[in-house]
């Protein structure tokens, strides 16, 4: 006896809709992050503009998903795994929507940064940080798609890599600013971009935790070692 579908088939359709919508939002958010970083590196204003307009689609998708989940709760009163699934879908959609906002914020900064021009050195770190965050995002979306928790802990641990790299990028940008005050505008924008990417990693981690909850019904332990130590960095430190 292995029933996997609901007796009421429309309920199955509803749940499929939710899962597809999350996958769709995930794909869109992923592409926005990728494009925003590419736009930043190549100073591609057109691509940056596309990211900004894509965010509208992401917001709309989230609204559609929220409406659907509200309707499912009202009509079907989901329990157990179904309840965990729709509840987590709301949270994941909210994380993805924030990821989109952060990508849009990077895209908006492309204009300011490209006006002044920047050296390859300055953005290399951002590029690398972006690769890590994108890999995280892809990994959690795959985990959601396959409802698999085998790699969840690894995904969470890898967020520490992003945090550590963000900290070192923070120091690096600070050094450039001290070397030449004319770098300050660009570096400040890049710092915000780096922070945005670090936040994207955090949202990926949130999604990983939601997937874990969907599959197991339990919460991952709250304790995680934090590697983002930028809040303790002062300018003098960078000489050390």
């Amino acid at each position, binding site marked *: 006896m292995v029933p996997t579908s609901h007796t009421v088939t429309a309920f199955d359709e509803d749940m499929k809709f939710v899962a597809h919508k999350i996958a769709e939002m995930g794909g869109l958010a992923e592409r926005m992050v990728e494009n925003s970083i590419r736009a930043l590196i190549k100073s591609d204003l057109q691509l940056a503009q596309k990211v900004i307009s894509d965010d509208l689609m992401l917001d709309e998708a989230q609204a559609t998903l929220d409406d659907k989940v509200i309707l499912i709760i009202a009509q079907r009163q989901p329990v*157990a795994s179904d309840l965990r699934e729709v509840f987590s879908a709301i949270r994941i959609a909210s994380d993805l929507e924030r990821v989109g906002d952060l990508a849009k914020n990077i895209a908006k900064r492309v204009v300011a940064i490209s006006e002044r021009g920047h050296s390859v050195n300055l953005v290399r770190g951002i590029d690398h940080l972006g690769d890590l965050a994108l890999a995280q995002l892809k990994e959690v979306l795959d985990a959601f798609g396959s409802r698999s928790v085998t790699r969840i802990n690894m995904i969470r641990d890898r967020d520490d890599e992003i945090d550590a790299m963000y900290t070192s990028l923070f120091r690096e940008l600070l050094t450039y600013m001290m070397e030449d005050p004319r770098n300050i505008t660009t570096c400040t924008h890049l710092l915000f971009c780096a922070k945005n990417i670090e936040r994207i990693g955090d949202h990926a981690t949130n999604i990983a935790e939601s997937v874990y909850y969907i599959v197991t019904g*339990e919460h991952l332990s709250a304790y995680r070692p934090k590697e983002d130590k930028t809040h303790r960095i002062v300018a003098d430190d960078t000489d050390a």
Partner: protein
Amino acid sequence: MKVEADQVFANNQAAAAVGATGAVIKMKGDKVGVFYGSKQALFDVDLDIYERQVTALIGPSGCGKSTFLRCLNRMNDTIDICRVTGKITLDSEDIYDPAIDVVELRARVGMVFQKPNPFPKSIYENVAYGPRIHGLVKSKADLDNLVEQSLRGAGLWEEAKDRLQEPGTGLSGGQQQRLCIARAIAVAPEVILMDEPCSALDPIATAKVEELIDELRENYTIVIVTHSMQQAARVSQRTAMFHLGELVEVDDTKTIFTNPSEKRTQDYITGRFG
């Protein structure tokens, strides 16, 4: 007011068993099996009923949940071909012991049925009948008082006080069901069994009965069979899932409805079979 039937069991009150959560075990099913003729309907059910808690029995039709419920006050005795094996205790006393007076047992373990079934008598007589035959009251004044307290306990007093002499069958379905609950609590039972008490009621009447169940929990141990998952989730503290005559799992209600251990429970409560 204390039920005299208690005296039959009085010696055993002290020996109340305590469950894992610290709750007192009021009734205990130990390897309970039920046969209808040669057909086995229930297999080795071990289930503890905690005092002053609502235990919900759920499962698809024919899963044995009503059969188990009916074992708890020996209602199955009325079916000739029915045979019960294993052991069921009330306050550690074996209720299938030949020395037990079944009438007294059913005063201690009352029952409310799926369809409201008031006697074809007045509202007053419906409630007064039990206390009178069990000799629980000495005077008319005592009886009047008991009828009022029972109707109040069932949340029916305000609606019924001016029409106590009218037939109980003239009440609405929801009122009739609360009259049956008043009738059940009039003999001061310790345990109340409810077999789908709301399945014939509209949502408002259902809500009133559910509210009542929550209040009754302060003084009574309640076991309820229900086909409404939401009702089980709302009114009970513990939920037992039956399937094909077996107890699949029993756990805190909040666990059953958020993260059940067994796939069969998961599939049933989410509407995947049954």
